[in-house]
């Protein structure tokens, strides 16, 4: 109790002062949370404030943002060759930077990271692990992490997961993301270790292999991407598996669009009450977003600034309009290869100006991610179709074609939608067109063979990892 108070004080002082946090202290604080849960079954009443901060007051929030931006920019101006040049070119004064002045600094795009990765490395810290983006939307970017980051992020992750009851001591988490996503894998294992939970890192293995481990109570948590979840649900249904075959209490996805139909099917098949769909991205780690029950995406305030910028003007998106999500992770949460105003090209809609009424109302939000900016279909100056609209409609087809494989193009104010034959098998073109019309999509269907399905749209579940056990034909050859 006394020690915990001192650790919390050290953490608070670190956060306020803006110096690097003591990851060891945070790790011990996670141990205190585990002990608290063992004794009381739940954290004390003010746990939420400990995590989300006292940011209900907009003025206090703005003051916090300005301080954090200045701190981050001051360091980058000295230690990051890329941002030293960028700030100088923009005539930005890091010590005086604020939300209003931020607009003078151009956003950083993925091409900058891919073409000049070395210029993003801070000169005062050594990188110990390189991780790459999955590259499903283009050439992968490489991000270096420092030892400090590798220790800090799991501690922060474990702290929030335990306090939010997303992870409990004794849980077993099965992780089905690409094994090349080294940060995700490392974080999952380290968070579970700190939280006294088990961790099974499987990767994108054949779905039946993953189901064998999930079934029979082999895991209580599943962390994966929506496309692989789709494959799991499809395989489980094929095998006649249902909620009684699993002991899952939580399924968490991120990295792709999770459709309502797939989420419902996953709940029915795997026996969970909902699928938690969060936002995270390698380039902007550790800034994340959480989806509430009203389908808003609430962005973490403590570790970074999230802006939603109009696609044409680059100014803050107006209520109701689409914008691209731009994220600045703050120092001391990002250390080795930080980005400043990183344009994720993820599209979200700015929520109407009214006050939020959801359970996370104190945290600013946008709509859920609706797709990538480059995948928007412009049917007319006033009508734009997002990837989410298409995926929602396709995955709601009675044939349950999960994950959605499609190609879409705007053609004379209509959508030319290419689907594999299996997507409408037994349903018919006419019924399918009516289905899309009911979803507000005026489409011309083009049907191709199922062998072309995966080339229509790449998903993370395409990053299959082979296993000797799955190649039975070779055994004994």
């Amino acid at each position: 109790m006394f020690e915990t108070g001192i650790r919390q004080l050290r953490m608070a002082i670190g956060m306020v002062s803006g110096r690097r946090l003591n990851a060891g202290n945070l790790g011990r604080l996670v141990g205190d949370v585990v002990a608290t849960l063992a004794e009381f079954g739940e954290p004390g009443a003010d746990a939420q404030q400990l995590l989300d901060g006292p940011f209900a007051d907009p003025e206090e929030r703005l003051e916090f943002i300005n301080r954090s931006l200045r701190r981050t920019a001051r360091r980058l101006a000295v230690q990051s060759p890329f941002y030293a040049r960028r700030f100088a070119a923009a005539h930005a004064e890091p010590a005086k930077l604020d939300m209003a002045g931020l607009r003078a600094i151009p956003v950083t795009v993925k091409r900058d990271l891919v073409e000049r990765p070395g210029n993003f490395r801070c000169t005062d810290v050594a990188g110990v692990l390189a991780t790459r983006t999955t590259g499903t939307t283009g050439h992968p970017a490489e991000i270096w992490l420092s030892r400090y980051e590798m220790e800090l992020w799991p501690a922060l992750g474990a702290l929030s997961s335990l306090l939010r009851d997303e992870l409990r001591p004794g849980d077993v988490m099965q992780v089905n993301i690409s094994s090349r996503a080294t940060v995700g894998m490392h974080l999952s294992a380290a968070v579970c270790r700190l939280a006294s939970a088990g961790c099974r890192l499987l990767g994108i293995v054949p779905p039946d292999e993953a189901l064998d481990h999930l079934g029979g109570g082999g895991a209580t948590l599943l962390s994966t991407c929506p496309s692989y979840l789709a494959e799991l649900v499809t395989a489980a249904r094929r095998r006649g598996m249902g909620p009684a075959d699993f002991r899952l209490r939580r399924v968490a996805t991120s990295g792709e669009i999770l459709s309502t139909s797939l989420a419902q099917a996953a709940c029915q098949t795997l026996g969970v009450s909902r699928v938690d769909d969060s936002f995270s991205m390698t380039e902007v780690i550790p800034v994340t977003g959480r989806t509430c029950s009203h389908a808003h995406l609430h962005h973490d305030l403590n570790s970074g600034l999230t802006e939603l910028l109009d696609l044409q003007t680059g100014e803050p998106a107006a209520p109701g309009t689409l914008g691209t999500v731009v994220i600045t992770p703050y120092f001391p949460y990002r250390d080795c290869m930080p980005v400043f105003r990183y344009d994720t090209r993820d599209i979200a809609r700015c929520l109407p100006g009214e006050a939020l009424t959801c359970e996370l109302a104190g945290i600013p939000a946008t709509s859920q991610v609706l797709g990538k900016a480059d995948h928007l279909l412009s049917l007319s100056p006033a009508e734009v179709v997002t990837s989410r609209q298409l995926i929602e409609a396709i995955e709601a087809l009675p044939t349950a074609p999960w994950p959605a494989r499609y190609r879409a193009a705007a053609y004379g104010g209509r959508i030319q939608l290419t689907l594999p034959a299996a997507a409408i098998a037994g349903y018919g073109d006419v019924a399918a067109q009516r289905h899309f019309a009911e979803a507000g999509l005026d489409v011309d269907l083009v049907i191709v063979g199922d062998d072309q399905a995966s080339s229509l749209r790449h998903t993370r579940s395409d990053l299959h990892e082979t296993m000797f056990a799955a190649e039975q034909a070779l055994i004994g050859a």
Partner: protein
Amino acid sequence: MPVTHDMPISLLQETVIELAVALVGIVAVTACALLYFRRVRLDRPPVGTFNGRDIGILLAFIIALPFLYAALPSWALTSFLALTFISALSIGYRPLLDRKWLWLGTGLLIGANIWTSRTMLGTVAGWQLWWAELSVLVALAAIAVANLYVQGGMKLRYVAWLALALGAYDVIFSSVFPLTNKLVQEFLGAPLDPSLGMRFGIDNFAIGIGDLLIFSLFAVAAYKAYGPRAARQAFGLIVVFGAFVPSLVPLLVNFVDARTDVLVPAQAFFGPAAFLCYRWMKHRYGRERTMAEYLASADGVARAAGAAEPAPAPEPASV
């Protein structure tokens, strides 16, 4: 009306009165602490539970306290004690009293005792008023702190170890380095002297807040860990080794060496007995219940039915 004596009373009378004061104080405080535990839920911090290292910190503080008492000027000591009592009462009775009444009551109790100790200690009645104020304050503080610790996750195991360590401490600081005796004499009549007691004639009879706290902790932690039967056993142990034995020892010492000025270190008797009792309970009843298990048990449910203050609702789980 209080009994007054012009002449010193006999050792037997002294022993009987000491026993009566100790019994009333110990039984009242321990029973109230148990009642409080059954009916009132204190707020607790988001993270943190009592562990072995906390006991070490507590012990270090207790060991340092007498030196602090001796080193501080009287105004600083009074301020320190006032702050300690204010903290204990404000935390402990926040679930029971409106903020206004809580601060008013705390202020009145502390203010009255400071005023009485400065102005009314020339008469037996004044002393008795001083003791009455102090006893209420000390009892309320002991009840609150015992609950703060046990509801904060302090296990019977830690209480037993703490009692054992305090037993050794009591022996050392009352026999080898008689600092406790010196402090008791020096601070008698000082504002907010952390003792519960009463004056009869020219004699003062008291029991320290530390003893009351350990007894309350032991009873409440035994109840939380193993239920009502264990609490009754703990209660019996407290009465025997916390009240009877320390009160009767002066008679025995007097019989042996004719001394009459014996300050009895109560924890020297209670500490080892409490530790052995805990070991026996552990052997007999097994693992201690956690606070969550206690609240989910029939004992916890019974408490909830008559709760003066409902347990704080958990924060909704975030998604």
